[in-house]
């Protein structure tokens, strides 16, 4: 069975404008579709990535002490005793910045005490917490041990000058980046001033405070030190299903329990996570919506144009039927015609899609467009074109041969 491409093609050439317009639409649609789907896919993958911590059952209390009467240590002890004593609470710890919040602390460590060469330093995103940090986060220790209560240092402040800490716990990823292919446990690392720290424990991976900022360090460490007294947080983990009830109790209690401090907010970690990914989520929604609309408009355009072509060619179709063309031949004619147009558009679109993808990767440092997306886009648009033209083609096939003998 031949597809009779030649006559269809010459017919197309005689009436170019409509076909060129459809091919152009297909080309732009392909360029947008592949790149948009690629970007959406990256964002969705990032947002859905596991955080490594029990984020669904955690909340964050933002507390600020003020005034000369504020006693940091007493306040901390009272608050933690209260929080850990609540039924429904698994554990709680003070923390310098909430995980996933988009704001955090970072430092660099190195393997030699006195070398200042930026290529040998390893950036770390660190949390200052007490010895309840792993249980509060819901992190499992892979090797080594946790901090002991007596190892927890006072906050970094003029009175307590230790810029570094003697022991640190690293996530698996951090340990592997500092000591590739070696066991990091028990090894010594240094800060920029040459203070040393021993890696006493290695825990499972977690996302730190900057889950979606490519420039920020993604390796996470725990420091056994209380956070600064101004604007620190409590991280609380509850039993499943009890988070909201515990949050209400805590908010009511802490608002009045200490006149020398104020509670800025009590927020579930899930809403902090939502906010940090808000831009990415919005981008994905917007891209997906516009892309769906664009493909829909293109398909409807193909459909509309085919419908019109059928009605202008009624007599021609009738003539073909009268001289022996079967219904299938008529349907095939329209399908092949659409296939030719779409193929032209797709070829043009491939160049456009790759060009746009290349430009985006240069301009915005995005990863280069994956070719699978292009293949998917081509098949998708081709199928859509065939579906869009199917109904008009069938209508064309029902044109009676007798039409050819009449004048309209």
């Amino acid at each position, binding site marked *: 069975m031949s597809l009779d491409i030649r006559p269809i093609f010459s017919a197309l050439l005689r009436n170019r*404008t*409509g076909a060129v*317009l459809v091919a152009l*639409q297909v080309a*732009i*649609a392909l*360029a*947008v579709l592949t790149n*948009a789907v690629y970007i959406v896919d990256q964002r969705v993958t990032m947002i859905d990535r596991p955080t490594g911590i029990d984020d669904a059952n955690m909340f*964050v209390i*933002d507390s*600020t002490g*003020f*005034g000369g*009467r504020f006693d940091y240590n007493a306040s901390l002890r009272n608050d933690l005793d209260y929080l850990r004593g609540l039924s429904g609470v698994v554990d709680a710890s003070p923390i310098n910045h909430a995980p996933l*919040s988009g*704001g955090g602390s970072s430092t660099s460590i190195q393997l030699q005490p006195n070398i*200042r060469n*930026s290529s040998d330093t390893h950036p770390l995103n660190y949390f200052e917490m007490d010895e309840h940090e792993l249980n509060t986060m819901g992190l499992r220790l892979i090797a080594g041990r946790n901090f002991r209560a007596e190892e927890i240092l006072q906050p970094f402040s*003029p009175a307590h*000058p230790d*810029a570094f800490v003697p022991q640190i716990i690293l996530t698996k990823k951090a340990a592997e980046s500092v000591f590739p292919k070696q066991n990091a446990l028990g090894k010594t690392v240094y800060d*920029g*001033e*040459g203070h040393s720290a021993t890696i006493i424990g290695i825990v499972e991976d977690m996302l730190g405070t900057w889950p979606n900022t490519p*420039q920020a360090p993604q390796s996470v460490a725990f420091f056994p030190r209380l956070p*600064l007294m*101004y*604007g620190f947080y409590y991280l609380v983990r509850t039993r499943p299903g009890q988070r909201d009830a515990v949050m209400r109790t805590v908010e009511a209690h802490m*608002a009045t329990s200490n006149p020398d401090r*104020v*509670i800025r*907010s009590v927020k579930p970690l899930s809403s*902090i996570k*939502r*906010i940090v990914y*808000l831009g990415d989520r*919005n*981008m994905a929604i*917007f*891209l997906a919506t*516009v892309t769906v*609309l*664009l493909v829909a*408009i*293109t398909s*409807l*355009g193909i459909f*509309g*144009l085919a419908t*019109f*072509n059928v*009605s*202008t060619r*009624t*007599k021609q179709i009738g003539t073909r039927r009268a001289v022996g063309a079967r219904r299938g031949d008529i349907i095939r004619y329209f399908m092949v015609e659409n296939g030719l147009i779409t193929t032209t558009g797709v070829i043009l679109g491939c160049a456009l899609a790759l060009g746009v993808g290349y430009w985006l990767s240069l301009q*915005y*440092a995005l990863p280069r467009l994956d070719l699978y997306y292009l293949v998917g886009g081509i098949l998708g648009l081709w199928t859509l074109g065939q579906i869009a033209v199917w109904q008009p083609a069938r209508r064309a096939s029902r044109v009676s041969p007798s039409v050819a003998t009449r*004048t*309209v």
Partner: protein
Amino acid sequence: MITYYLRLALKSFRRSPGLAVLMVCAIGLGIAACVMTLTIYHVKSGNPIWWKNDKLYAVTMDSWDPNKAYDSRHPSMPPPQVTYKDAMYLAASKIPEHSAVMFRALGVLSGGTAQRRPEPIITRVTTAGFFPMFDVPFLYGGGWKSDADSAPGPVIVITREENDKLFAGANSVGRTIRWNDRDFRIVGVLDYWRPMPKFFDLNNGAFTEPEDAYIPFGWGPALQLVSAGNNMNWKPEELKTHKDFLNSETIWLQMWVQLPNSAAVQRMQSFLDSYWAEQHKAGRFPRPRNNRLTDVSGWLAANDAVSSDDEMLVGLAFAFLAVCLINTVGLLLAKFLNGAAITGMRRALGASQREIFTQHLVEVGVLAVAGALLGLVLSAFGLWALRVMFDDSDAIFGASGLPQLVRVDVSSIVATVALAVIAALAAGLYPAWRVGRLPPAIYLKSQ
């Protein structure tokens, strides 16, 4: 004649209503997508103090790590903030008409007549130049004098919103409130002020709401206040005391100057450069000389106030509009050519090519108006959806004011209508011209 053409247009739509709806939808959707993305882009790329664009300059000096640039994406840019010692030296210069050195700090506000619980706020610790320099509007009173800056006076400026909370909106100038555990005298109450992007401190949230209160800069060192914004240090330094911190290479302060003319800009630049040379000789500023005075629009561009996502979305919207228009051109062409028999008849009865052209253009015009109306409705709906999508009032630290700014305003209405009419007419021009040029004879003969 026009009414007759309008009647013909309506008749034509009635002949194929599905097609008319499709074209109106295509135009409307394309327009709506463009208006939505352009509104976001417009808000984010706006220069909130354009009238002083040639007078205000951000001061930056490259004091960063000799081995690597501050920002690998913009390696030629100095860090966006300055160190305390540099800021103090530069702020003493008499070249600028005004200068501001500042940072964000946490604080707790209490007192007032409304008997409220102490309220956590965010404070801007700044020098007196801030208020005249940025044309900050006052409801009551004004800023403080610069003599209150270094040996800090207990004076405070609060926003209108805080004044509403603490004093139920009454003129509170001269009243005393407590900032943390100290008494401060209110010297000014700001009027509503939302510079977006917050150009003077892009580094700590370009779209966050301005701070709730302002206190003189000298309180920073006096009370050993720490910045609630970005603090960065490349150099390993042992910082035992707050004094060590102030003398360190930590960049944490924003600095702006107001320079009246290009001569002053040049004098300020050479002042920066000679300070740099002197310090460089003493062993500081290990990187190549890179001292900059950047005007507001340059500052917004250099600090990526408009994110790459916003730019991509504008590109996407215009690609979408292009597809919608090409679609409309194709459909109009098919439709007009399909009506060639009738057109041929009208031509035979004496209608000129020009009249045929006008008639079809009127038809396009009707589609354009309908598309514009639809586009306007869709834009309004879309912007409402964007407000919901951008709602970050849950943010742990400083919600953005973006949702309030993303709205239908006069300029977006004008833009929508103009865009629709131009777009649809552009789409209709070729088909209308084509159909006007058809030879009437063949279409009279048969199909």
